[in-house]
């Protein structure tokens, strides 16, 4: 059983939600909590490769997502949302598990706490 399931429903950069989801996922694992980060709806766009933050002042959230995984966060992306966003499962970086709605329901059911962004 994981301590926290973080669900991200929003695409990166337009608002702060994706950055906050990633920040709290990192905070969770840094405090030795078990964290699942689940990308659904436009949240799957966070997994898009080749994000370039040059001259924008933003933290590169694609790289931050990779850092998250290296720190021990388990990252999942919803198969249906990937299709809805005109992405292909082949576009999803290695290490992110592509799962179904039923599997997401299981992750949420089995987590002690859920944070929704």
């Amino acid at each position, binding site marked *: 059983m994981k301590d926290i399931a973080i669900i991200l429903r929003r695409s990166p*950069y337009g608002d702060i939600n994706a950055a906050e989801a990633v920040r709290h996922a990192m905070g969770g694992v840094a405090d030795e909590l078990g964290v699942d980060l689940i990308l659904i709806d436009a949240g799957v766009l966070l997994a898009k490769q080749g994000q370039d933050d040059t001259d924008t002042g*933003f933290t590169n959230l694609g790289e931050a997502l990779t850092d998250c995984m290296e720190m021990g966060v388990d990252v999942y992306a919803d198969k249906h949302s990937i299709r809805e966003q005109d992405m292909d499962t082949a576009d999803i970086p290695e290490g992110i598990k592509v799962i179904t709605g039923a599997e997401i329901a299981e992750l949420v059911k089995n987590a002690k706490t859920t944070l929704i962004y």
Partner: protein
Amino acid sequence: MSKTFTLLLGTSPYSYENTLTTVKIAESALSKGHTVNVIASGDGVYCFLKGQKAKGITNAEEKFTELIEKGLRVYL
């Protein structure tokens, strides 16, 4: 021909990308010799608080201070 740009900023500094968009449009318009007004409305007024420490995202205080020095007019 010089024109006047009036930008309405209605969101808090770090929850949306609007701070960056406003800063970049204002910066470019000022550099082309236009007059630029920013009207901060609602939570937009928080962009102009002193002592902001934001990193990894456009620091509203820092950028707007730079632009005010370049001629930006701000109305709260």
